[in-house]
Every structure is written in C-alpha cells, then in structure tokens.
C-alpha cells in the first residue's frame, strides 16, 4: 500500500531529544500512526510492525492505529526513522521533503533497529556507554 | 607611554576658535597634550586639512531593524562585497553593510563616533552586541520612548518628575545614551493599525497627545540634566503638508539649556513638505528654516536624500506601511510591546521623479537657509535618505554653487518651481562643514567634555587628515577634489592610533560605549512603584530581572553621570 508520511514533533519525542539513545525516544520515533482502515487492509493490529520502503531502502516501524489520521497517510514523529525515508534533494531550496515521504508499506515480522544500529547502517560506529 | 606628533597640519577646530592655522598636534597615550618629546613618531600632514574625528549624530548602523534590513536583502549584500584584506574582515552590503562594513567605511571617511539613532529598550542587548562588532568608532544609542507606557502614564498625570524617573531608570537599565521620540504616540496607535494626523490628536486608548508627550519629555530630560536633548522624529513624516506639524512642534520648547539646544529635530528634510498630495508637493524649507533661525534652542539634522537605491528603516511603523502602499516593495514591520514600533522597505530615489527631486532639493535648502551651522548637522539619516558614503557628495553640493546648479539641471524640472534651491547662492566654507560634521555634533550631543569634537588639551586624539589643502583649493570650482578628499582620509586616528590610512583600515582599538547613568533620589525609584513593576509581571513578555542589560554588554562602557538636583 502506498502512503504519504508526515512527520512532526510530539511531546514524548521532544522530551527525549537529549536522550536519543533511550528506550523512550527509540519507541516514540519508530512508531508510525496509521488510519485503522489502512491497517486492516494490510492485516496488522496495533503494535505490530510494518516495513516502509522508498527508493529501494526499507525500514521497520511499529504501527499504531489512530483514527485522526486520514487514509493513505501516516504520521511518524521526527527523528532518524522518519528521515531514513527522506532523500537528499532540496529542489534548490536547502529544505528536503521532510513531511512528504511517499512509501510503500507492508506487514512484517522483522525487528526494529535501534538508533545506534540505524546509524551503523549509514556507516557509523555505535557508541554504547 | 606612546607619543605621536602630527606636524604641519591645517587645523580647523571650531570649538577652540581655530580657523585654519598650520600647526602641530601632540598626542600622548591617546589624548591631546601640550607637547611631546623630540624623539617620538611623527606624521607630516603637509598642510592638509586636519579635523577632529567625524561624529554622526543620527545614523542607523546597529540593532534589530538595521540587521533586519540586511537579513531581508541579499541583493544589497551582494552589492558591496569585499574580501579579507590585512586587518580587515570581509564585508558585505551597500546600503546596509555588515557591522565591519559600516565601521571600516566610516573610518575611511574620518569618522570616529557614531550615534545609533533608534534603540528599542527591550532589544538593547542586540544593539550592544553589534556595537562590539563596530570596532572603529565609539558608540552611543538613542533610546526610544515614543510609545513607552510608563512614560505615557507620567504624561497623563502631568508628572514631570515621574517621567524623568522612568527615563532615567530605563537609560541606565539598557545602557542607552539619550531620548529618542519617533512619531510620538503614533507608534502606539500603530499597535492597532492607526496613526495620528496632528500633534494635538489624542493617542487611542491613552488620554494624551503627542504635544504633551514631547513637552513632558523635554522637561524630564532637562530635569535629569542628560548630556543630549530630546531627539525628535516629528509626527507625519513624509506626508505632503507636514511642514505645519513641524512648525507647531518647533514652537513647543523654550530655551531651557545654556550649554546646548533644548530640542534636536532629526531628518527635517522629510518634515518640510508643503502641498496636499504627491501631485502638488512642494518645499516649505524657507518657513522651516525661518523658524529655526529664530530659535537658538533648536538644532536639526538634514536627512538629505541622494539619488539611487537605499533602504528606509525607522521606528515609525505606520509611515513605512504608507510607503509600502505606494511602492508595493517588500515590507517589514516590527512592533515592540509597550515601547515602540518599526518598519523597513527598500526604495529607489530617482532624479526622474518630481517627488524625489524635490526631496533632494529640500535637504540642501535647509542646510543653506539655516544661517548658523551649529544648528544644522550634515546627515542622510543613514541609510534612509542615502547611505553615509554619500556624505562627501553632499559636502560638495553645499560648498559649490556651480556643482549644485549642474546637478539641479539634471533633476526633475518641477524642482525649480517647487523649491528655492536655484535661487540660493550661499557656499559653505570648510569651517562650516567642520561644524556640521563634528564640532556641532559634539556640542549637540553634549560630549565635548568627554573629549570629543575638538583638540583641547586632554581631548581624545580622534583625528582625520584629509588630502586637501584648503588654502590652495577653491571648493566652489574644485568640488571634485573636495569630494574625493572627504571620501578617503590620508590618516584616521582614534585614541591616538592610526587606524586607517589611504582607505585601508590597518588596525583597531577597543571602542567605547557612552551611556547615561542618572543618579536619582529615593522618591524617584520607579522600582518602588507598583504600577511600574506590574508592567513587567503582567504585560511585558520578559521578566524585569531579565530585561536589565548586564555589564557584559558594555565591557568598555563610559557611564555619563547625570541626575536630579535634590
């Protein structure tokens, strides 16, 4: 299913910006809110996982049903998971398409990577102290 | 101990009555002294014009709206870029240059002291941060009171002492120098999108008029013995027919101070318009200058307009909105709660425009028709009328009737009918220019005793040596050489150090900030007034404790002690 992913601040995300490696930040920024009907269509329940794919890159996210979300859209709090789906083109404005990531989503049983692991995928070395 | 001798200087020092003598100037540790030892460093001025460092008594160079002018104008930044050169940082900008751009270009023109014309108290830290990055000049900040609610209450109560208490506290709290009123009452009215059409119209929601604000503030200023008088941007700036407002305003103050004027009217060019519409606008510079010629208690500055692109910026928010509805150019506005307003729009003054040409002529008329140069300072209200780099051309226009006539023939033809410029043949002398660019400013600002504007013993050794020999030059004919000379000094000295030479800034010295510290008796302590303190707890959006400007922002501050006689 194709959806357009919006991102933005939430209180939990915002409260943990100085703790990017905490379980709270991890849980909040890797959780996507979806319309319940869309979730039914791809066959997942609250708390189950989806794989979101753009440009041959995919990321696993936890799904949460939220009937304030319009069908065909999703809301993912801002952070490394949301930005994993964003490309580097700014259309000569300096600003990437942060709130307009078009992704294919499907149900998955794969696990969600931590922030450190995600950065490792991008070429970094996880710091764990 | 460092010593320096300037030999063979053609000195004009109006405050000392030196009218062009070839003489030597001795400097020790940054100050003028009687003599120095024979072995010290010597600069040979070779008969060139040598003046005290230039002082600009009304310019916009630092602070919130100046910086917003830069921020919104990359096209202007591109128009004046220089790379790093020696001690000079790179600069950007033409009409609103970066702080270093302003500072280097003023220094190259021999200026060592600048008064920022409009600082909102609540945004004072910003002004002081930029002062620190304007290293070649000593700085002063006129502080805006035109919409100050605590002052309004004192005006409403007809309580001059309370008005003085509010002003004295505020200047010390924000490290301000003098009182600036910009469209008094009008900036408050603009809070709800209104303006005032006369000095007797009531300020909406406040039971007071601009006339009462001006009168009370002048009396409070004198009660406080502030170095500078009230510095007023009149109501109705830029409106055809506004000369009536200006004349009424000129009639407000009596002569209350023996050392300086009682009222300083700024950029009077913008306030000397007759007619009723843009179609029939004409000069009323003669009526305005007649009034000034009869009022020794008033000093003005020109606010000269020069042709080309510039940026208008003022605390007068409603005026800028009117300008926006005329030009449809980009418009910025920034009201400051409980205090004042501001607006910015870029303009292009064209010699093909009748209105712009008449404005250009009015500024010159004022400078030529005001008889006493001590009553008329040379400014463009930088950058409103033109960027300050145009000052030398203005000097040329004032010193040469020939140049003026040539220029007049190039502007819109209505200018000849609607102004008297063509019939004025006065040509100003070097001495008169010296008064209008430094000595008069030092007197008007009240900073003679701080060692500014003269070469008396113990004065600050701020000196400008211009490449022109007055006794061998006829400015009337050789105006181009005069203009060139004022564009670039041979030497600019600040605090006895050569900071700029042949247009290159070669070093910096730590600049100062002059501010007014009013020492007030206990009954004038505003912090004991619940009504005053309540402004901060209920209506300002910052705490009183975080409003006060900390000493970190005036690390080289010079507190000018003033106060109320008890």
């Amino acid at each position, binding site marked *: 299913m194709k959806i*357009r992913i919006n991102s933005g601040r939430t*209180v939990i995300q*915002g409260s943990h*910006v*100085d703790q990017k490696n905490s379980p709270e930040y991890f849980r909040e920024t890797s959780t996507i809110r979806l319309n319940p009907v869309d979730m039914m269509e791809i066959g997942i329940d609250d708390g189950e996982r989806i794989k979101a794919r753009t440009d041959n890159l995919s990321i696993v996210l936890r799904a949460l049903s939220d009937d*304030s979300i319009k069908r065909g859209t999703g*809301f993912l709090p801002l*952070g490394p998971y949301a*930005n994993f789906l964003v*490309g*580097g*083109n*700014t259309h*000569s*404005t*300096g*600003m*990437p*398409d942060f*709130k*307009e990531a078009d992704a294919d989503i499907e149900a998955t049983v794969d696990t969600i990577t931590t*922030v450190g692991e995600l*950065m*490792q995928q*991008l070429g*970094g*070395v996880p*710091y764990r102290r | 101990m460092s010593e320096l001798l300037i030999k063979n200087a053609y000195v004009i020092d109006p405050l000392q009555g030196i009218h062009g003598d070839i003489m030597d100037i001795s400097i020790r540790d940054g100050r003028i002294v009687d003599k120095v030892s024979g072995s010290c460093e010597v600069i040979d001025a070779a008969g060139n014009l040598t003046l005290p460092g230039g002082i600009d008594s009304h310019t916009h160079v630092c602070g919130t709206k100046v*910086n*917003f002018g830069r921020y*919104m104008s*990359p096209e202007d930044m591109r128009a004046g870029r220089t*790379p790093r050169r020696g001690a000079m*940082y*790179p600069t*950007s*900008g033409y009409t609103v240059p970066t702080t270093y*751009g302003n500072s280097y270009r003023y220094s190259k023109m021999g200026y060592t002291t600048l008064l920022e014309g409009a600082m909102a108290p*609540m945004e004072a*830290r*910003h002004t002081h*941060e930029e002062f620190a*990055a304007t290293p070649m000049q000593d700085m002063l900040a006129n502080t805006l009171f035109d919409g100050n609610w605590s002052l309004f209450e004192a005006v409403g109560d007809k309580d001059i002492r309370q008005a003085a208490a509010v002003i004295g506290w505020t200047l010390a709290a924000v490290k301000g120098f003098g009182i600036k009123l910009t469209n008094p009452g009008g900036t408050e009215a*603009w*809070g709800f999108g209104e303006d005032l059409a006369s000095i007797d119209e009531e300020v909406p*929601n406040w039971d007071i008029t601009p006339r009462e604000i001006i009168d009370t503030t002048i009396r409070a200023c004198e009660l406080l013995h502030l170095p500078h008088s009230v510095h007023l941007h009149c109501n109705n700036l830029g409106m055809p027919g506004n000369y009536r407002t200006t004349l009424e305003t000129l009639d407000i103050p009596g002569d209350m101070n023996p050392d300086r004027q009682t009222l300083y009217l700024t950029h009077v060019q913008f306030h000397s318009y007759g007619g009723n519409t843009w179609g029939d606008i004409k000069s009323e510079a003669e009526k305005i200058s007649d009034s000034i010629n009869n009022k020794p208690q008033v000093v003005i500055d020109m606010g000269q307009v020069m042709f080309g692109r510039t940026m208008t910026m003022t605390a007068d928010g409603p005026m800028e*909105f009117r300008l926006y509805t005329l030009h449809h150019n980009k418009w910025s*506005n*920034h*009201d400051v*709660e*409980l205090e004042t307003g501001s607006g910015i729009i870029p303009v292009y003054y064209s010699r093909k425009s009748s209105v712009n040409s008449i404005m250009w002529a009015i500024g010159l008329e004022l400078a030529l028709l005001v008889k006493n140069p001590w009553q008329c300072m040379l400014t463009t209200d930088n950058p409103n009328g033109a960027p300050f780099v145009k000052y030398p051309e203005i000097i040329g226009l004032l010193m040469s009737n020939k140049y003026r006539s040539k220029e007049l023939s190039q502007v819109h033809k209505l200018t000849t009918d609607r102004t008297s410029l063509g019939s004025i043949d006065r040509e100003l002398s070097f001495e008169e220019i010296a008064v209008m660019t430094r000595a008069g400013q030092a007197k008007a600002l009240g900073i003679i005793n701080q060692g500014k504007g003269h070469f008396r013993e113990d004065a600050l050794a701020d000196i400008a040596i211009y490449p022109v020999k007055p006794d061998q030059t006829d400015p009337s004919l050789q105006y181009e050489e005069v203009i060139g000379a004022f564009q670039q000094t041979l030497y600019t000295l600040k605090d006895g150090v050569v900071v700029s030479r042949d247009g290159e800034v070669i070093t910096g010295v730590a600049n100062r900030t002059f501010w007014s510290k009013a020492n007030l008796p206990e009954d004038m302590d505003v912090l004991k007034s619940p009504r005053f303190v309540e402004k901060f707890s*209920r*209506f*300002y*959006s*910052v*705490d009183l*404790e975080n409003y006060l400007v*900390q000493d970190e922002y005036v690390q080289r501050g010079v507190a000018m002690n003033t106060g109320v006689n008890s």
Partner: protein
Amino acid sequence: MFHIEDKVRHIVCPYCGCLCDDILVELTDGRISGVENACTLGAHKFLDDADNRLKGPIMRKGDQWVDISYEEAIAYAVQTLSEADRPLLYGWSGCVTETQAIGAHLAELIGGVVDSTTSVCHGPSILAIQEVGHPGCTLGQVKNRADTIIYWGSNPIEAHPRHLSRYTNYADAYFLHNAFRERKVIVFDVRKTATSEIASEFVQLEQGGDYHVLSALRAIVRGREDVVPDMVAGVPKSQLIRVAEMCKKAKFGALFFGVGVTMTGGKYKNIRNAIEFVDELNRHTKWTISPMRGHSNVYGSNEVFTWITGYPYAVDYARGIAFYNPGETTAVDILARKEADAALIMASDPGAHFPRTCCEHLAKIPTILFDPYPSATTHLCTVQIPCAVNGIDAAGTAYRMDGIPIRTRKFLETGYPTDTSLMHEIYEQIRERKEHV
C-alpha cells in the same frame, strides 16, 4: 544527612524559541531537583540533564570508541579543520551568540561554509521574507492586543507548549477584559492535533494544499470570492469565507506558522503567500505574522551571521567573500553532493534530522561534534567534545523567536568547558597555524 537546598529564579529555558525566562529551578546538593513554570519539554531538559552528559571527549578508532583529553580533541579539530578543503560548520542553534560569532569568523578563516539548523526548519521562511518582507512584532504585542490568532502548520501544544499560555490564548492581555473568552484561535493543519482540539475554528486541509488555501483566502479578502471554487484543497469555500471574515473583523490578528508550511509543497512560496495574505489584511485591520522558531537560539544564529557575514545562514567563504545561495550552500545540499571533506557540528543532531544520504556522508568524513549528550550523530562522528549546557552551566545571549535578545543564566558549576571557550581556542590555534605557514 544535611542537604543544601536552593532555589534560583528567572532562569531562561534553553529548549525552544519561546525562551521562557520565568523558570524556577530547585537545587539539592548541587543537582537540579525540581523545576517550576517550565513545560514538559523544558522540565525534561533541566531534570534529566545530569544523568545524560557525556563524561569527556571521545574518539572513534576503527570500530571502537576511546576516551581522549580535551587537549587531544582540540588538537584534532585544529588539524582537521586547517587541512580541510571544503569544511562545513553546521548547527549553532543550541549555543549562545558569542559562540556563533566565532563560528562565522572561523568559516571565513578556513574558507568554509557556515550554516545553521535554519536551513532545515525556517530557511524557506527567510527566503520568502527576502522576497516580500516580514510584518511581525514582539510576542508581548500579541499577548496584549491580539483577539484573533492563527496557528498554521504548527502544533504549539506539543512543540512550543507555553506559547499559548505566555503569549496568546491563555495569556493576560492589557486591551482585552476577559482575554481567554474574547480571543479566537483558528488552526490550519493537515491532521487533527492537540492544538486543533482547542481551536474555535479548525480548518483541515489536504497535505500540500497550503498554497491553494492561502491563495483562496487572499482572493476573498480582496473581494474576489467569485474566483474561488467550492472546495479548495479539501476545505469548503463557505469555511474559507467565514475565516476571512473573522480575520477582517479582528482588531489585532497574529498568524503563527510552523514547519508544516516550510517543508511541504512549494516551501518558501507557501510562506510568501502567507506573508502576502497578512499584507492584504493590513489594508483592513492590524495583522502580524511570525515563524514558530524551534531551537532556543536558532534566531540568534541568523542575527549574528547577518551582522558578520551579511546573510542569515548558508554562507560560503570558499572564495574569500561571503557567498550565499540556499539550495547550493545549505548543509543538506553540500552533504548530499558529497562535497564536504570535514565537518564541525555544533549543538545539533543531523544524525537524527538529516536525510540518510547526508548522514552517510558525515560518517565517511572527519566529523567533530560538540554536544553535551550522546546523540544520534555521536554514532556518525569521529570525535565528540562535550561542553557546558547553555542556560545551565554556561551563560550567553540567545534571541527569542521574535528577535528579543535575552541573556541565559548559569546556575551550576560543573567543570565542563563552554563551547565559547573551546571555539575561541580552536579559532586562535588555527589562526596562529595559518600565520606560520
């Protein structure tokens, strides 16, 4: 056991662009034990601070992390930045203007690019302002006068939680008798949010439809509702007419917009349209417009860079003069083009907030991170240098979202060096090195 307890008042919260300056912090035995007046975001900033700090500088060696001294970290920064051909100096929004100023001068000294987080938040707003200007005001002006408030693409209850209570809906007003009852709040958003719940009028538009809706509103205010179709980006015309009427009837209106409008669709063209809508309303009554700036001192970075370089962000000194071309000289573009060969990241977290391709490039080049806490960028950088936290154990100037400069307060002594002193040291060492080459 004896406890030393203390309360410090008028503390300035260093979290968001609201820069609330009425925070009370309680200290017990030199640790923050309580916070009053702050919102959830601010309270976490203060209360969680001590346990989150990185103890000292760290360096990546192969696939290991080792502790290094501050001297070693500075030496690494000096060498890396001196030898770089295309250094990027990015971030700056969480530190004080005194540090930002050194950043701008350092960029000039090494011929680098200096950019702040502006480019990925309100950069498009600045581009729009450079086209059409900005009719704004201070927040207290809104508080005392506004009877109509619009939040557009902005969810202050979660992003700037005290904005409504300090400056708008719930704040005391000088000119309104019963401010809370007399004020109307209009929310424009693509989704229901905590803020839309409290709105007197909620306009839900389709994602990417801001430009259309603004154009329709401008047409209606100009008296040309005849050109507006029955539905505009999911919004019924009747609602737009009602909202336009509310706007014209306001005595003082204030429009606040968030990154919901800067990041989508036409980006800066959305903002330009919003500004021109406000320009139009000013022909009828008083209106102002203001961006909801995110970081505590992101506006300070724009101010400082402007007075030093001439431009608010994205300044490139590669050719000796200040050159500005957002879209080319902005951090995301420089990294996405894989152009930077070294990066200094000050007080921000591109690892969490940049597109993946930019993060990949940061992981490849020497990246020096100044941050008190381990962040997402920590895993990508080569060296991280922890410094004192502005507003807790460091003080300096910060500019509120409306341009009001406030001095943050230092109330703890921790021994961490400030970013100002570290940057000063790096600048001086590089300057000396250049003089001896």
